[in-house]
């Protein structure tokens, strides 16, 4: 199985702060990958490293088997839409397509023009006058029409209204279906990703907390509700992601590949959102554990 993205010990430091640290991951091809985490978690840094906009401080990163900063051949294979979907305000929509022709040997102009027509964008309109949604669509069109094997999208829908979000994601799914392109899409909202992604990476506080196919993640995480007990006395194959207690009752979110045998637990399915929030909360706890454990006991 080829990996679209493979990182080993990958880190990026700005001054004294690590924006991303010790990131080791292998993302299989042919997936729509959601990269989720709070703002400032390092999502953009990871995507910029993959797109070749940044060089790593430590570790290695491979994208489609090549190094991201390896020249034009590598750049051709990766499409990138940056956060806030920047376009040239002074250039028209048609100018942007021309830019695509000029800068990309593999440019598919039919595809680009077809998309612009479907989106009913006026080719003569200056890109600076487009709405946020239209601008995002234009940026996506540029990234798609260069015919990449991997699309990297950095929070492309964060600034869009709900309708524009849906249209953007629908357009993206059409491209995935038609072109078989792999996608890595970041967002700080799980709800956006749940509908379109097969694979999820949770990135919190510059570290990857969990990564895997969404089906497997949902199958291996459970919420256990039962009489109050000490989390330290759980079976070794059950990793506790989140625990909360009342006087009589404990609620645990555990990860395990084994079935839950203990009959005293009521086992519940976990939603993807709860799962992600649990991982986000875990790092928050790690930073403030003494104070919080007081409150909870």
């Amino acid at each position, binding site marked *: 199985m080829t990996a679209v993205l493979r990182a080993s010990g990958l880190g990026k430091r700005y001054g004294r702060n690590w924006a991303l640290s010790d990131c080791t991951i292998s993302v299989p091809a042919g997936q729509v990958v959601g990269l989720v985490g709070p703002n400032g978690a390092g999502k953009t840094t990871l995507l*910029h490293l993959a*797109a*070749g*906009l940044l060089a790593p401080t430590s570790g290695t990163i491979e994208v489609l088997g090549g190094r991201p900063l390896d*020249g*034009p051949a590598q*750049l*051709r294979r*990766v*499409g*990138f839409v*940056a*956060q*806030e979907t*920047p*376009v*040239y*305000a*002074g*250039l028209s929509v048609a*100018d942007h397509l*021309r*830019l*695509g022709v*000029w*800068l*990309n*040997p*593999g440019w598919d102009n039919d595809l680009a023009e077809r998309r612009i027509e479907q989106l009913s964008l006026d080719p003569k309109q200056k890109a600076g006058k487009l709405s946020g949604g239209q601008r995002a669509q234009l*940026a996506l069109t*540029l*990234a798609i029409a*260069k015919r990449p094997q991997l699309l990297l999208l950095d929070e492309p829908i964060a600034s869009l209204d709900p309708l524009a979000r849906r249209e953007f994601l629908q357009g993206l799914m059409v491209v995935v279906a038609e072109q078989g392109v792999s996608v890595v899409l970041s967002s700080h909202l799980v709800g956006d990703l749940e509908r379109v992604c097969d694979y999820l990476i949770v990135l919190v506080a510059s570290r990857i907390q969990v990564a895997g196919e969404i089906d497997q993640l949902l199958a291996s995480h459970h919420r256990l509700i039962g009489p109050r007990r000490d989390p330290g006395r759980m079976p070794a194959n059950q990793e506790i992601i989140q625990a909360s207690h009342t006087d009589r009752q404990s609620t645990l979110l555990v990860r395990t590949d084994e079935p839950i045998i203990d009959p005293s637990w009521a086992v519940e399915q976990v939603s993807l959102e709860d799962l992600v929030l649990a991982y986000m909360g875990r790092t928050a706890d790690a930073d403030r554990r003494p104070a919080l454990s007081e409150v909870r006991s």
Partner: protein
Amino acid sequence: MIRLAWRQFRSQAALALVALAALAVVVAVTGANLAHLYDTTVAPCNAGGGDCQAVGVSLLSTDLSLQLVLSAIVLAAPALVGIFWGAPLIARELETGTFRLAWTQSITRTRWLAVKLGVVGLSGMAIVGLLSLMVTWWYGPIDRVSMNEFQPGVFDARDIVPIAYAAFAIALGITAGLVIRRTTAAMAATMVGYVGALLVVTSLAGPYLMPPAHANVPLSSASDLGFDPGPTLVAGAPDIPNAWVLSSQIVDGSDQAPSQTAMAQFIQTACPKVFGSASQVGGQLKGPADATAFHDCIVQLSSKYHEDVTYQPADRYWVFQWCESAIFLGLAVILAGVSFWWIRRRV
């Protein structure tokens, strides 16, 4: 990439070309008039060998405000292309985030920078070059009369040096924009850096670029008698056509600068009419009698003292034009190298 660079730059280039064309019309009309004036007044006078000061002054005061405007334009043009074309070129892309769009197309950022730098740099040099050509031609008759081709405001506004200034200013603007990443700050830095570099290089070029020549010039009315604190001689500016006079000082027959007391003693003995009386106040010499005494005094003093002048002679004009151009082109190349290093390592 060259088509994109041109597409992004063409409206600015068009604006500059329109302004240049408008200026060319003004320059052509008034310049032809100026040349005609020279040919009909100064040239016949020079051929006749008389005193041509009056016709010269009359030519020098023709189109005086246009003279100032043209000088100002050609002096400011390199700084303007550096500030308004160079500094925003990369800084604006960094500021608005569009560099992320550009750098993730199928060309490397190095090539992106090389093409942008090439298109804007060469356009800026071409525009400033045309401007300098026009102004140099227009000023031709005036320069032949005023004979001060090395003077600041003349030397740096003629022939080829403005082109090298433009190359330097644009490279400085691009590098500042890349490093500072803010358009307005980069523009300000470009202006300060450009003016600073110009002052440093031009002030060092005169004495150090080539060893200056020396000349012995007899005392003349240009050398002033004075009373500070006692009678003394102060070297005036000698009149060597088109030369760049760096310094001049009073020396005696053995080329040594005389001490104040030695000079004062000699002046008092040589010029008893001027300096004999203690009633002189404030160094003011008045009346026709005094003027004769003054003239006699200078003649007397000339037997012992003369002026030693260090200067760059007129025939070095083109050496200096080429050398200064080479210096600024060299600086531009160094800055371009810095910007390539920076875009690969630091952004």
